[in-house]
């Protein structure tokens, strides 16, 4: 029996969220005394994994798995899980992990619990806390199946370094090839994605029009942040849909969320409230966002944001 962690990578670079999954697994292994096995698909840079304590790494290299396909990946991970009798499968809350996990859960007859925010508060029965109602609440959930898949909410557990010297295995694998074919993938290389970002700079209708977004982008650039927006901003076409965050857009669970000219409607807050530190910049001191933020500036975005950007650059120059 073991704890299996699926490690995601992108061009040989392991994703930070996977280190968090591994940190979770390692902590879990202390509670239930099982080995932690990492499974990685088509990634040759495995060294960073040993900072987070796996006992074993199963490294799969297969040309047919070059592009992510949820059906194929679920099949491979299911076969690996069976081969190591994994009872606990830990993944991140990323788009691809959640996509494959629901398929995997049927293959393994496992429960899949997403948005997990804590280690189990009991292991027999197995009970974990997850966020629900679009972050407006948490619930304790008891898992009755023998095998369980947990996806860990970003930034909820954090990274926990724990050096190990894992054995690396390159198994032969077989899987049933899916009939779903990927035709093309378009990603904007130069931009940080909301999912991966540690900092997100988000702006709303207070910015008056798309032509004013340069101040947002400049600030984001300084902070190596992703840009995001409120729903009306994407509805009006000022920004692409992919930037819309909130209850009906993307969830944001980042270290630092800066909200500029966003009033803080309940649907917006639901999606971003699990971010650790929230800063609000708004000229209306009554804006509801001030009730949930950690730091606030009552002021005109058009003055504050460029000034803040300059000050941050100066701060960075001094500190590097």
């Amino acid at each position, binding site marked *: 029996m073991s704890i299996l962690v699926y490690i995601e990578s992108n061009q040989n670079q392991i994703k930070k969220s996977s280190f968090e999954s591994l940190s979770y697994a390692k902590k879990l292994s202390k509670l239930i005394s099982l080995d932690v096995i990492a499974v990685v698909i088509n990634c040759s840079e495995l060294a960073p994994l040993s900072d987070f304590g796996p006992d074993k790494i199963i490294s799969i290299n297969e040309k047919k798995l070059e592009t992510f396909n949820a059906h194929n990946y679920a099949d491979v991970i299911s076969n690996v899980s069976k081969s190591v009798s994994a009872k606990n499968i830990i993944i991140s809350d990323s788009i691809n992990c959640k996509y494959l996990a*629901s398929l995997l859960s049927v293959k393994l007859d496992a429960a899949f619990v997403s948005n997990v925010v804590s280690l189990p508060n009991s292991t027999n029965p197995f009970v974990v806390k997850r966020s629900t109602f679009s972050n*407006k*609440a948490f619930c304790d959930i008891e898992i009755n199946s023998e095998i369980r898949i947990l996806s860990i909410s970003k930034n909820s557990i954090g990274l926990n370094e724990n050096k190990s010297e894992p054995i690396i295995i390159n198994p032969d694998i077989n899987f049933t090839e899916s009939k779903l074919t990927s035709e*093309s993938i378009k990603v904007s290389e130069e931009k940080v994605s909301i*999912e991966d970002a540690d900092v997100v700079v988000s702006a709303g209708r207070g910015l008056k029009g798309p032509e004013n977004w340069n101040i947002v982008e400049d600030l984001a650039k300084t902070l190596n942040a992703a840009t995001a927006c409120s729903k009306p901003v994407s509805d009006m076409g000022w920004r692409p*849909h992919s930037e819309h965050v909130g209850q009906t857009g993307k969830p944001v669970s980042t270290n630092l969320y800066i909200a500029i000219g966003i009033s803080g409607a309940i649907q917006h807050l639901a999606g971003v409230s699990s971010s650790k530190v929230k800063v609000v910049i708004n000229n209306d001191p009554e804006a509801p966002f001030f009730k949930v*933020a950690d730091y606030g*500036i009552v002021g005109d975005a058009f003055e*504050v944001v460029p000034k803040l950007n300059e000050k941050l650059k100066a701060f960075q120059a001094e500190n590097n």
Partner: protein
Amino acid sequence: MKILVCISCVPDTTSKINFKNNDTEFDNSQIQYIINPNDEFGLTRAVWFKENDGAEIDVVSVGLDNNDQILRKALAIGADSAFRINQEALDSFQVAKLLSAHISNNNYDLVIAGRESIDYNGGMVPGIIAEILNFNYVTNCVGLEITDSSAEIKREIEGGVETLTCKLPLIIGAQKGLVEESDLKIPNMRGIMQARQKPFEIIQGKTEETKTKTFKFEKPESNKEIKLVSPDNLDELIQYLHNEAKVI
């Protein structure tokens, strides 16, 4: 083409979430229910296929009779027939199994669900159905075109979009972007009148096993006091972020 839209009935997005009976149950006393927004995007796309390609649309929901008004709204928006599987929705596996049974009895070419429900936020039901029925499955779906029996699907990925193709049958998890916000339909009087004449069937459904049990809720801690910084003293904010919050 025969389409099924799976609809989960969720609290209105403006709802304040409260619990009762010692935080063991959701308090629905002040709650207005709506069609899950992700499902509404899917339904709207289905209506487009009906209007443009003559598709036939069924809608289905697993739940008790308070879901009926939501299914009637879906009929008023343009679905042809509604089904309610009369079991209280308890977990994703149970719901997916009930829906799978309905789907295999009815030969759908396309099943549309949402990326996730905004109450449970599981994001699991369509994937479980796909695997049970051996359907192609794409979630985070932001584009869907069907020609004859082939589908071209756009899927949101981190930082971009992937285009995929497959043959039907297919199940998707719809989300914002699949249709324009301005295409969402508010039922008009005529639609509401017509909905009353449309078939509405209540299916008993089996008692399915569950794998999970939610038994206790809590609300996030209310925030500590906000620290306000003057726009003339932005260095103070930088110091807070660096020394106190340690995020820069």
